[in-house]
Each structure stands twice: as structure tokens, then as C-alpha cells.
């Protein structure tokens, strides 16, 4: 027998209570893992956003088009290194409710602005020569079971062709890989020329412009220059850093980070009360036994350690199981929700914070009963019997 055996025996004393307390800790940590994964998914774009990229869109809304001529006018600004423009196609494959990001762009510029895209050189050359060619993210390829060379009819919820047909013919010519865990491989890119010449309306308009600048330190000045250039025109612009743009986009859903923090604070406060009460009750019921242990020579400090050991075991076990179950749930949800939340993942930081929280939970819930056990007057406790 050792102290650990004693702790285990004490935890098993009231199995139902221990189990329910453990379950409440597990559920709280599952929630912690899931909400953090959600927060991570929303923040992912922010983390991956380049500091040297600016995004220019219509001042009113990013769904309002910009004139194509803006591309040349921005590229004339000092400090601009590369420039690319994108539009929203409103693409879907078979099911109109399942839209995905298909962006008409001048593909030559894509890798200049986003050098992190990893594309096979042979496929890339083929793509540049194929008017109806598609560049598709590898995860998207896997999810749909698509193959290179496959002909693919894709619908647009916005743009019909000039013949009135909403379905467009494509051929998958190349695939790309993103960099880092959770990068968005659920998008596709097509030739702007094909799009622009065949669409029934909106010729020579684009959705937004991405500008790669030579020195991120000049970001603020170039941002101002771009917007000043189009000020007082019929199509004014709003330029921001890529990070700011993504943050603004995410903010449409509200402050996810704050919401996650608020929910978790409520959950952990409740958990603190629940498990703290369970621990306090458990120790209260053992007043006589603790007095006996002190009588036979257990020091106050040793008794505190035993009580803290129990609360720490409960919190750490519950925390670990909760994080593990959260990890499994996130793993399952990751594939199912990949279209909406490509970055859904449990980060090492979440595991670390989770373990620290479990440690704190164990210490705090064991502290009050532990101190009470330490201060227990042996003579009074024995006389109570």
C-alpha cells in the first residue's frame, strides 16, 4: 500500500458520486476542446494571413464588383510587387445547397501572390494552357473522389453562360496543397478569361484585389494610397491587410473568441462549484477517519496532500479523458465539417491549457477541504463520535 492506493480507495468510497463528478469534469473538458477547436478554425485564416498582402474591395461590400481597370492602377503604385484579382463564382457540384469557393482569377498571378501554394510543375503548365482547366485543393479532391483529368460540370448560383446555361464545363488539371495544419484545401481556381468571356453579364468586373507588397512596413501607407486613388469615384474602395480583412469577415459571426471564453468561464465556474462541493462533502464525511490518521502520526501537511491528491486525480483524470474524447469528436467532425470549418483541429496549445486548467481545478477544489482537514482538531473530532 502507498499514498496512491489510499487516494484510489477514498475515491472509490462513493462510486456514484465520484463517477458523476468525473463525468461533469469530462463533459466540461469535451466542451473546452470543442469550443477551442471552433475558435481555432475561425482564427486560422488570421494566423495564416500574410502580413505582406493587402485586400481591396468595394467600399460598400465585398459582394459589389470592382472595375477590372483597378488592377492596373493599383499595380502602378510604388511598393506593389504582385497583384491578383478574384471573383466569387457561387459554384456547386450537384447540390446547389453545397456551395464552395471557386474563384475565377488570372492563374499566372496566383502563385506570385500566394507562393505557399504547392503545385506540381507539370500540372501547373498544363493548367495555364487549358482554358477550362481547374486547380482544385487536394482535400476537396479526396472528399469528392475526383481525379486529375476528370471532366466536371459545375453549377453557378450567380452566373449563367451567354447561352443561359448555369452549368459550366471544367476539366481538373491540377491540384494544390496548402501549408500547415488546417490550411484551406477546399477551394478551386479557374481561368478568369474563360469566366469573363462566357458569362452572361458583369464583363470586365472583378470581386476583389489582392496586392502583394515588397515591404510589410509600408502596408499602412500603400493601403491609404490605394483608397485615395479611388476616392470620390463611383466605385470607392476599402483596403485592409489580409489579416484585418479576415478578422472583419470572421467578426460577422460575432466575437467568437469572446463567446468561447464566456461559455467556458460559465462552465468552469459551475464545475468548480460541483466538484468543489463533492470534494468538501467527501472530506466532511471522513472527519473521524482523518482525525484517526492524524492521531497515528500523519502530519497536517500529509493529510492536505492526500486530500489534494484526490481532487487532483479526479480533475486530471476527467481532464485527460475529456480532452481525449474531445480530440476523437473533433477528428470525426473535421471531415464532416471540412467544407465549412476547414481548420477544425485540436492544437497542442489547447491540450496544454486544458492540462493547466485541470491542474488548477484539482488544486482549487481540494484546497478548502484540504485546509479544513489540516486544521481539524483531533480531540474535538474524536469526541464527536
Amino acid at each position, binding site marked *: *500500500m502507498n499514498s496512491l492506493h489510499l487516494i484510489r480507495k477514498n475515491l472509490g468510497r462513493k462510486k456514484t458520486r465520484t463517477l458523476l463528478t468525473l463525468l461533469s469534469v469530462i463533459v466540461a473538458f469535451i466542451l473546452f476542446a470543442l469550443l477551442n477547436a471552433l475558435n481555432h478554425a475561425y482564427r486560422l485564416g488570421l494566423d495564416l494571413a500574410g502580413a505582406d498582402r493587402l485586400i481591396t474591395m468595394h467600399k460598400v461590400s465585398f459582394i459589389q464588383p470592382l472595375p477590372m481597370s483597378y488592377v492596373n492602377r493599383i499595380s502602378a503604385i510604388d511598393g506593389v510587387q504582385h497583384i491578383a484579382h478574384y471573383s466569387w463564382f457561387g459554384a456547386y457540384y450537384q447540390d446547389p445547397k453545397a456551395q464552395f469557393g471557386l474563384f475565377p482569377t488570372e492563374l499566372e498571378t496566383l502563385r506570385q501572390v500566394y507562393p505557399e501554394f504547392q503545385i506540381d510543375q507539370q500540372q501547373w503548365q498544363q493548367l495555364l494552357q487549358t482554358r477550362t482547366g481547374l486547380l482544385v485543393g487536394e482535400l476537396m479532391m479526396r472528399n469528392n473522389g475526383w481525379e486529375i483529368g476528370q471532366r466536371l460540370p459545375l453549377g453557378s448560383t450567380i452566373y449563367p453562360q451567354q447561352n443561359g446555361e448555369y452549368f459550366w464545363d471544367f476539366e481538373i488539371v491540377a491540384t494544390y496543397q496548402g501549408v500547415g495544419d488546417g490550411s484551406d484545401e477546399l477551394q478551386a481556381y479557374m481561368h478568369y478569361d474563360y469566366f469573363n468571356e462566357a458569362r452572361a453579364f458583369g464583363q470586365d468586373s472583378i470581386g476583389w484585389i489582392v496586392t502583394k507588397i515588397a515591404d510589410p512596413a509600408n502596408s499602412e501607407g500603400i493601403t491609404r494610397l490605394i483608397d485615395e486613388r479611388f476616392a470620390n469615384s463611383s466605385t470607392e474602395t476599402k483596403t485592409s491587410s489580409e489579416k484585418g480583412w479576415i478578422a472583419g469577415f470572421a467578426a460577422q459571426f460575432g466575437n467568437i473568441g469572446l463567446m468561447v471564453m464566456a461559455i467556458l468561464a460559465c462552465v468552469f465556474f459551475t464545475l468548480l462549484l460541483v466538484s468543489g462541493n463533492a470534494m468538501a462533502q467527501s472530506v466532511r464525511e471522513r472527519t473521524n477517519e482523518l482525525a484517526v490518521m492524524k492521531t497515528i*502520526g500523519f*502530519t497536517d501537511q500529509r493529510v492536505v496532500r492526500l486530500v489534494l491528491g484526490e481532487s487532483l486525480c479526479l480533475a486530471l483524470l476527467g481532464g485527460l479523458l475529456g480532452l481525449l474524447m474531445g480530440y476523437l469528436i473533433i477528428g470525426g467532425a473535421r471531415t464532416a465539417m471540412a467544407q465549412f470549418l476547414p481548420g477544425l483541429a485540436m492544437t497542442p496549445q489547447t491540450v496544454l491549457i486544458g492540462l493547466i486548467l485541470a491542474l488548477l481545478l484539482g488544486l482549487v477544489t481540494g484546497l478548502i477541504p484540504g485546509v479544513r482537514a489540516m486544521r481539524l482538531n*483531533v480531540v474535538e473530532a474524536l469526541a464527536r463520535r
Partner: protein
Amino acid sequence: MSKGAVQVTQVVKNFHKGKEKVEVLHGLELTVPSGDFVAMMGPSGSGKTTLLNLIGGLDQPSAGEIRVDNMRIDDLSSRQLAHWRAEQVGFIFQFYNLLPVLTAQSNVELPLLLKKMSRQERRERVLNALKIVGLEDRAKHYPRELSGGQEQRVAIARAIVSDPSLLLADEPTGDLDRETADEILQLLKVLNETHGKTIIMVTHDPAAAAYAKRIVQLDKGRLAEAA
């Protein structure tokens, strides 16, 4: 002084009931030589258990001096007292006070967790203690699976497993029938005579006190007489 000898000198113990100060022991003097078996008797409230707690280092006197094996224990810190109790004293309670979640063997082993000792040595000492009280075949039983007498035997085994020189028993037979009580008292007698333990036993029962070598009577916080 040799092993287990107790010297109580001019001990006063006060308690506070609200604002009122109550003196329970009034300058009490008691000498228990090594190897003695003393029964402490007296009416309820006479201060028997209070004196036993003071000798066992569970409480500290308001005035006076307590020495065990010539070591003054009344001025030790709470931590020092805990270590001292673990080494020098075995306690036997009226209601056995075993931990219900532990087997007889683990209950007896409990005081040995405080000592640096190999697992094997601990096991040997536990089995030896259980053998002395005649319960080696009940080692794996939980307290709920034992009779009252057997539980008290386990409690005695727990008290002697560290080989203390002094055993303090507070009404050790108060919860037992006559026959079982006699078995327990006989066991205490053996521990005193054969194993050389100094025993101080608080009891209301004259039949139990008869097992002791000496009886001291307490009345209203003073030593009334010695038999």
C-alpha cells in the same frame, strides 16, 4: 526513565466554553513507570480522556509538564508531535476507528506508511502484528466483514505495528460484550507482560480495570487515589 515511562507534573488543562473558562485538570501529577499497565477510572467529566489525550500528544496542557521516556512533549510543535506519535505511541479507541475502505492488512499497514521501509519489511511487520492479535487469517477482510471483537483486534494490531513503547487505550472494551471484552483485555495483558508495552487504559468498567497492574482514580480533574 526507560521505555514508555510517563511523567505528568503539575498539569493544568483549561477549556473555553464561550467566554467561560473551565479548568478540567488541576495541577495533576502522575507517574507511570516503564512496563506498567494502568487503568484510569473515574466518573464522566473527571478528565480521564483529557489526560490520555495530553499524554498521547493530541492536545497540549495549559500549564505543567509531560514527559514520555524523559522527553518533554508538551512544548513540541504540531508537526513534531505527529512524528513523535508515529514513533512512540499506539492508540486504541472505543469504536475501533478502522478505515472502512481498507482491508485489515491495509489498516494495520497505515502507520508504516509514515516510515521509510521496504514493501517486504512492511508486509512482514503487518503479518506479525496480525499474528500477535490472532487474526492472520483475516488479513484480506474488510472491517464490515469482521465482528466487533475482530475489529478491535485489528485496531490493536495497528497500534502495535510500529512497535511503540506506549499504548493508550480509551474505553477499548466499551463497545463489546463481556466475553469479547475479556479476550481483548487478555490480549492487552499479554502485550504488557510478554511484549513489554506500557499501557494506560481509560475505562468505566471495574472488570476491565481488574486486568491492569494498577488503577488510578480521577475525580473532578484531580487524582483521587491510587490502588
